[in-house]
């Protein structure tokens, strides 16, 4: 196995020191970020809160199996039962907790589609912290009820770019009508945290400590399957920055590496933003504004702005370094899908199992259905697990667009991009 390449300080080009992060993260989270320990205890205060909805249910998709007439066994682990509607609270709660412990009074963050902002709003309300969420303007306008739900949990949700930060004001001066971007929202939140003494920053994906918190999913999955004496042949999960999917499958990685278990773990991404399947494995910035450390990951380039697909949560140019490392070593594989086929699978799922999947989560349903249909031909009684990371109750305008035939199938022109990069000097 290839050891994980460290994040680099972009100024020095040297591996990042813990002190580099102290301005925006509490010490305990930095320790977890850099830890190589196998187990890190979950504090009782965090367990108490996670108990509100955990363990999340593992369902057997009997009706979907029947509909497909497949001999395969399809399971799905449903993270949409959390109060915020997705897997995001799994890390929002511990992050809020460690910040509270460190004496921090306020947290600033960004959100794209709104899942992360909602989860952190809830988590901060549990620990009496203030929270400000910079939400990408385009999503802010498109999903107004995200703001409402954050307000219910006591957080302040502002459209980004905003008049509240230097980076926001600078962008607005040049582009008063801009819909914003995740890169800009990150810059605003980081600036907010760096310029307020009592304020820290929180990130909902990509980083090691986030993935660590999410592994609660996979540990539950393993125990739940053991109860019915089963074990996955394959796990499908969607990947945007990579937190839900690694959380679900990392606990199975040692089985594959040490015990030589035959298990496939498939990271599912949109064809419009195919980081793992078409990206370059290299050091790159985590954000558009080049504020973050350099991370070794599969990347489409920090200047790449993915097209406007309806799975907003999967529009990220890079992916978690831990996940990328395992993809690079062939332990985990990537697959990409077009949005129309993904929505079609989501509708089939909703009409058989009842649950309305988030468009992001539906990326994992599509290949699971294909796989189950293939089993019909081979007769294989494969055990298939879908990570159903959230519900789609805030995404109904996207379903509308699908039904009215207005969804465009974007894709990434890989050959031409490679051709164009061939003559550019390397970073």
């Amino acid at each position, binding site marked *: 196995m290839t050891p994980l390449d460290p994040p680099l300080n972009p100024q020095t080009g040297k591996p990042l020191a813990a002190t580099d992060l102290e301005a925006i993260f509490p010490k305990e989270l930095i320790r977890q970020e850099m830890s190589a320990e196998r187990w890190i205890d979950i504090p009782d205060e965090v367990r108490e809160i996670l108990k509100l909805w955990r363990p999340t249910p593992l369902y057997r998709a009997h009706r979907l199996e029947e509909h497909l007439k497949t001999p395969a066994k399809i399971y799905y682990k449903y993270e949409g039962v959390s109060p915020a509607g997705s897997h995001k609270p799994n890390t929002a709660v511990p992050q809020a907790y460690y910040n509270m412990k460190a004496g921090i009074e306020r947290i600033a963050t960004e959100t794209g589609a709104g899942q992360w902002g909602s989860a952190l709003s809830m988590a901060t309300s549990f620990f009496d912290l203030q929270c400000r969420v910079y939400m990408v303007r385009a999503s802010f306008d498109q999903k107004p009820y995200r703001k409402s739900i954050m307000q219910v949990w006591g957080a302040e949700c502002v459209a980004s770019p905003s008049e509240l930060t230097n980076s926001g004001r600078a962008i607005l001066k040049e582009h008063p009508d801009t819909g914003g971007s995740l890169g800009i929202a990150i810059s605003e939140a980081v600036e907010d945290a760096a310029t307020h003494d009592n304020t820290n920053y929180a990130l909902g994906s990509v980083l090691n400590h986030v993935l660590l918190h999410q592994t609660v999913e996979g540990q539950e999955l393993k125990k739940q399957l053991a109860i019915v004496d089963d074990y996955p042949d394959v796990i499908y999960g969607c990947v945007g920055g990579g937190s839900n999917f690694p959380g679900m499958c990392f606990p199975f990685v040692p089985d594959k590496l040490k015990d030589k278990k035959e298990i496939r773990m498939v990271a599912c991404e949109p064809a419009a933003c195919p980081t793992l399947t078409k990206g370059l494995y290299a050091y790159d910035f985590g954000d558009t504004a080049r504020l973050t450390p350099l991370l070794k990951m599969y990347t489409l380039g920090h200047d790449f702005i993915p097209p*406007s*697909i309806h799975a907003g949560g999967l529009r990220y140019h890079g992916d978690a370094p831990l996940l990328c490392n395992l993809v690079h070593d062939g332990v985990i594989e990537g697959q990409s899908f*077009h949005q129309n086929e993904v929505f079609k699978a989501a509708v089939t799922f909703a009409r058989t199992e009842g649950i309305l999947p988030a468009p992001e989560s539906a990326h994992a349903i599509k290949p699971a259905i294909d796989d189950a249909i293939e089993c019909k031909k081979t007769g294989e009684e494969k055990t298939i697990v879908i990570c159903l990371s959230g519900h789609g109750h805030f995404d109904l305008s996207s379903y509308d*667009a699908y039904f009215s035939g207005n969804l465009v199938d*974007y*894709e990434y022109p890989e050959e031409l991009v490679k051709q164009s990069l061939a003559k550019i000097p390397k970073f």
Partner: protein
Amino acid sequence: MINPVAGMGGVVGLKGTDGLAEEARRRGAKPAAPRRAETALKDLLGLDALFFTASGEMGESALRRCGLEYQVVHRASEESSAEDTKKACISFLEKGADLVVFCGGDGTARDVSGVIRSKIPIIGIPAGVKMHSGVFAISPRAAGELIRGDLEGDLNTRETEIVDVDEEKYRSGTLDTKIYGIAMTPYQPVLVQERKQIYASRDEDEFKLQIAIFASEFMRDGSAYILGAGTTTAKIAEVLGVEKTLLGVDVVQNGRTICRDASERDLLGILEEVGKAKIIVSPIGAQGFVLGRGSQQISPKVLRKAGPENLIIVATPHKLKETPRLLVDTGDFDLDETISGKRQVICGYRIAQRKEVVASSKVGTDEND
């Protein structure tokens, strides 16, 4: 400006009405253009606008029947002709009109745009036999909405191609299409799909620029690039800093033009010399023809020699939204078949769409008649 005889030839199998209105009438064709014009105009009642028009069936009668305010600025001859169209358009410009609305087909579009050029926007109410030009609305009712939107200031305008087929040759079985000019036309911004676009721009020009910047990057590979006609490929040349004939086909290699306004023979010669080349084309006209309209120098021979896999299609999301599928009609059915299917169309910086490309022989060529 209504061409009262537009479309009459199509119904009776004449593939166009240029110079054949009398024959069409003899074969029993009835004028349909005035009725189609009224469909577009009748929704405009109450709009604060004054219409300049030509007398009788060339506009006056339809405007009167729709109850719209108008002023006749050109007396048409008994048997209206292309001359009347052109003269009426000259008067429209003199009167300081803001928008030209005409009803007809590609022939009428040519006559109108020959006078108006890019001075003011043009909207075509579709009523002809052939309507490949980009100024046509998809239906008379849609034309009405565009007129209203343009006058109320809700729309952007863009450049588009005026395309026509030589009817004489077409009747004898040869399809010879040319781009005759560039006109300005209003369009509905792409709303639904682009809402989440970062730095969203409803402006088509910005997407043209994105495509051009991406192309200028991948064109550094040393290959010869055959650039088809049109405004998107012209933008690529502009970004590369090379000269390009707007209505012709040019060949660019390593940042310079190696052949201007190339003929089929020129292209074959270059292919002979350099071994292989890549071809960049953009859909022409309202129906989304990628090949077989506009740049016919890029012939089946040229395509086969370059290799169909070296065909790169570029188009703005706006253009792609207008057409459910792209069409090819090279005249070589096997080649059309090879090219058709789901293809990648570059629509922005490092962004493509997957779009259906269909051999037009499979959809029938007369769907607009």
